[in-house]
């Protein structure tokens, strides 16, 4: 299977930034249903700094870039989203340290480390109706692709994006057990989790951007 180049990895981060900035109001509205309506604005505040500082970030390797992104996100994203999204980029940044291309096995390893890091940071588990569920669905799909020895990385990304995207409907009937939504208990059944939606939207946009 081909590898993900540094240019493609940078496009992944750029695409996540675009999605966060384009959906600032939409993500906040989703959060307003059960939370405190700040998710979209918090996330956009962090990614806006990533966007503004893009040229000055360390582009010497994929890992170095992700660590820089992590710092910018953690320092500028309000609420719990800062440590959570910061950990996503920090753990992958550590896993991809010094690398200028990534095999699917390395990508999976980095994302698994990120999931573990976010669990440790926020105390959430899989099934708590958080962005971890979308990330896990994405990684499980990538793991399946690795096992089947499919030769297209982009096909694997397409399937993973679909898996992450589908988690929004799968999890809709679940009770939120972490984060601000959890305060509403049973009332969270039948609502979308903004973090799960954000990961699904980003994954879809990444798969499409890499095709272009």
């Amino acid at each position, binding site marked *: 299977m081909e590898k993900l180049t540094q240019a493609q990895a940078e496009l992944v981060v750029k695409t996540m930034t675009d999605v966060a900035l384009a959906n600032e109001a939409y993500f906040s509205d989703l959060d307003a249903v059960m939370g405190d309506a700040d998710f979209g604005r918090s996330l956009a505040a962090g990614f806006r700094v990533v966007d503004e500082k893009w040229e000055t970030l360390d582009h010497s390797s994929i890992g170095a870039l992700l*660590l820089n992104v992590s*710092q910018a996100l953690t320092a500028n994203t309000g609420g719990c989203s800062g*440590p959570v999204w910061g950990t996503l980029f920090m753990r992958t*940044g550590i896993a991809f340290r010094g690398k200028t291309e990534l095999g699917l096995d390395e990508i999976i390893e980095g994302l698994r480390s990120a999931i573990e890091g976010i669990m*440790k940071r926020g105390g959430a588990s899989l099934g708590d109706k958080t962005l971890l569920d979308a990330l896990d669905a994405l990684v499980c799909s990538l793991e399946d692709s690795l096992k089947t020895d499919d030769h297209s990385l982009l096909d694997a990304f397409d399937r993973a994006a679909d898996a992450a995207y589908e988690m929004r409907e799968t999890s809709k009937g679940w009770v939120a057990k972490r984060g601000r939504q959890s305060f509403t208990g049973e009332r969270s059944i039948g609502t979308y989790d903004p973090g799960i939606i954000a990961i699904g939207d980003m994954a879809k946009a990444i798969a499409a951007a890499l095709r272009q």
Partner: protein
Amino acid sequence: MKKFVDDPAQFVRDMEEGIYLANQDALKWIPEFNIIVRADLPEDKVLIMQGSGSGHEPAHVMAVGPGMLDAACPGAVFAAPPMDYVLECTRLLRNPKGILHLINNYQGDRMAWDMAKEMAEAEDPDLAIGVVIINDDVAVQDSLYTVGRRGVAGNFFVIKAVGAASDEGKSLEELVALGEKVNGWTRSMGIALTSCTPPAKGTPIFEIGEDEIEVGVGIHGEPGRRRDKIRPATEIMDEVFEAVCTDLPFQAGDRVAVMINGLGGTPISELYLLYGLAAKKCAEHGLVIAKNYVGNYCTSLEMAGFSLTLSKLDEEIEGYLNAPASIPIRVF
């Protein structure tokens, strides 16, 4: 709100500027990250840092100096420092012997410090960072901002002991073990008579009646065990002392350090009155007071109130408490 303040949003910055200007020979100040650091940063020992929120002064920005903290990076008033403050401070202290992070047990602090530690280790895999979590408050098991007990005035004893031990050249591992021992033998509980007003908030953090006290108050005004009516000082000390003493429990014959800590708005006269009562309670319980501390060590802005801390001593800890140290607060 009636305070000596210009721009409330700049309160911590402006306070730190004053600390720096009063101690230019001893301290350096990095306003961008709220960092106060020793000007004479040693190169041959484990370096120690603490963060926490502001509003608890002298903890921790005024506890920086030889034999105590090497640096502090507080957040806004009653808010944990952002991760990048902790990371920047950690980078500043980078050295081959290692860095000790002292963290009061609050969720925001633990998250920020945990991330900064991982980030600093990612930048420099050879860097050794040790952690001691401080949780001496016996009032409540969990509270608004914690899973587990809160860290309050007892952190002074942890800082003093590890500060002195690091000067002696103890290793990072030894300092972590010592810090955990001191924390494990230290118990505190506080009483509030009044609320307090963070400058950027402008209004009191909680309401309390003229004749009411909060028993077991947290240092950010978090609720304690219960609301009660004001009573004679002896009755209040009886309750606080029993709560603290029975928790470890301290036992007859133990050598202890006793601290009557002011929460900011209580005059030193009342603190000494309380010390007198605490000393009698120690005698009743057969505790031998080897060291005493009366004054403001860990405050909640202008809150009137006090906390009692008992810390069990052994020869090692007592030696460290007696070792020389120097911080910006001075009488002479």
